[in-house]
């Protein structure tokens, strides 16, 4: 346990000692701010139209403002998270520090989990900054906090999946750019996997098609996020994300181990 913490601490320190943390957090908050402004603007205009048109019904700020905001924020993660994960293993291998880690009395799993927690911490800090925008909503309106909390939980799990995949890709190469680009492509494929679902019947025929469609829909990591945005914590989705993360980390562990054997 102390080894995991030492490793996670080292990772976080490495992020903040280099420009990575500042660039990632800074740019993410700028983009998030732009999204926030655009959606807020749209929401206010809708509200005014509603007030002028028909009667007393007011717009739900959670449904109409915060949920779409988080939906859009997930798109940003597609671009930002590869920058967090691409260095995890690639950098250690390039600098030779991997030799230190693998010859220390610390298991591969401890290294792996430490690295994962380190990246997750930076990601959580990045999400933490966006709280500032939401606090402003509380000052001028009365949003419910519970759906916001579940959305953050959803974002953390969703990002966790990407981090696990990103670390796996980073363990394949010594080159950070290659790792970053490959991670982005894999993320994007996972993103659009449900687009293929609609054409599954055409590709696989009427007998196998519906099954493939269901599987592809289930694998789409964006679809599992929906309920979190609505304020629902469904164990089905939590289990999906947690098992996705576990599987990603397991493959990373295998990848690191196989590198040892191959030399």
């Amino acid at each position: 346990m102390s080894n995991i913490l030492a490793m996670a601490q080292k990772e976080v320190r490495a992020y903040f000692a280099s420009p990575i943390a500042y660039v990632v957090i800074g740019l993410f908050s700028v983009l998030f701010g732009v999204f926030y402004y655009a959606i807020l603007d749209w929401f206010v205009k809708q509200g005014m139209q509603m007030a002028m048109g028909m009667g007393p019904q007011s717009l739900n700020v959670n449904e109409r403002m915060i949920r779409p905001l988080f939906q859009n924020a997930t798109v940003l993660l597609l671009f930002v998270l590869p920058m967090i994960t691409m260095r995890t293993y690639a950098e250690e291998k390039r600098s030779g520090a991997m030799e230190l880690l693998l010859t220390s009395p610390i298991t591969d799993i401890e290294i792996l989990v430490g690295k994962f927690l380190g990246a997750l911490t930076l990601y959580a800090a990045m999400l933490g900054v966006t709280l500032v925008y939401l606090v402003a909503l509380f000052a001028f309106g009365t949003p419910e906090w519970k759906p916001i909390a579940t959305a953050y939980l959803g974002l953390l799990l969703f990002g966790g999946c990407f981090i696990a995949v990103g670390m796996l890709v980073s363990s394949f190469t010594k080159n950070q750019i290659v790792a970053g680009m490959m991670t982005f492509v894999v993320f994007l494929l996972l993103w659009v996997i449900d687009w293929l679902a609609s054409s599954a019947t055409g590709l696989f025929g009427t007998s196998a098609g519906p099954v493939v469609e269901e599987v592809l829909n289930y694998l789409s990591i964006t679809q599992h996020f929906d309920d979190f945005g609505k304020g629902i914590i469904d164990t089905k989705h939590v289990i999906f994300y947690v098992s996705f993360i576990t599987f990603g980390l397991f493959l990373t562990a295998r990848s690191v181990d196989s590198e040892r054997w191959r030399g």
Partner: protein
Amino acid sequence: MIEVQHLTKRYGRVTAVDDVTFRVERGEILGFLGPNGAGKTTTMRVITGYMPPTQGKVIVAGFDVFDQPIDAKRRTGYLPETPPLYPDMTVREYLTFVAKIKGVQSGDRFARVAEAMKKTAVADMAERQCAKLSKGYRQRVGLAQAIIHNPDVLVLDEPTAGLDPKQIIETRQLIKDLAGTHTIVLSTHILPEVSQTCQRVVIITKGKVVAVDTPDNLTHRLAGAETMYVQVDAADADATSAFQAVAGVTRVGLSDRHGPAVGYEVESARGHDIRRELAAAVVSKGWGLLELRPLRMSLEEIFLQVTTEEVPSRKPESAGSIEEAAQ
């Protein structure tokens, strides 16, 4: 302390290390010699548990490196060819991190870091970022990292590479000081380093061990005969026949000629000291004896002899001088 038994390591179809067996006793310094690509680094990586062997096993401090890796690694310090530093960390941060993952108790960490920095003379750079260190300091921080948890076994891959002469002497002294309490395996391509620091030498080529012995024994064993270099100021005299007349001499050859001073190589059977007789012969002829010294094969020549298939022709006139120049 370290037992390497029938170690074989293959990368795909390439055999990097082929059935290597040797032992290192407690407190000993073992030198690991070999041309580039001979399998030195691979062997060291298997000893330190960085990679598993294809066949055979390695036992460090009583623990099989493959079966009980954590116990073995806790007792091993390793300096790879490139010091494994984190560029963004300061030296102190880095060493503290290494102390943590090497299992140094939190109460001892500060003292261990300070001691390692003192021993390797990097304390003045404690707050400097690793990225901004010079090559010599990097190497020494790498050494500090290897000794931080006071391991029984130290594996050093070219510990003096990239250091200036003063630092090399200091590092060698440090390594010698560490021996006794630590068991050390070091690889190097600087041959005099081996004769100065190591008690035993393993010469490896193409993945196979070709010689294991003390540097002195190697120098003796591989030389077939004793050779003396004699320089006399007898330009016109026939010294060759005079030397041949000395009992025990098997061969006399002209070596060099500088004006009146003429150098000869005089060979005799092994274990046959003919210096006294040679000196007497020179004096009886009335010549001046300018120089008389034994020629030994330098480690360079032994190294070449055992690592190349064709035995190179011996050039004794350079033998002594290379060793001296290198020192």
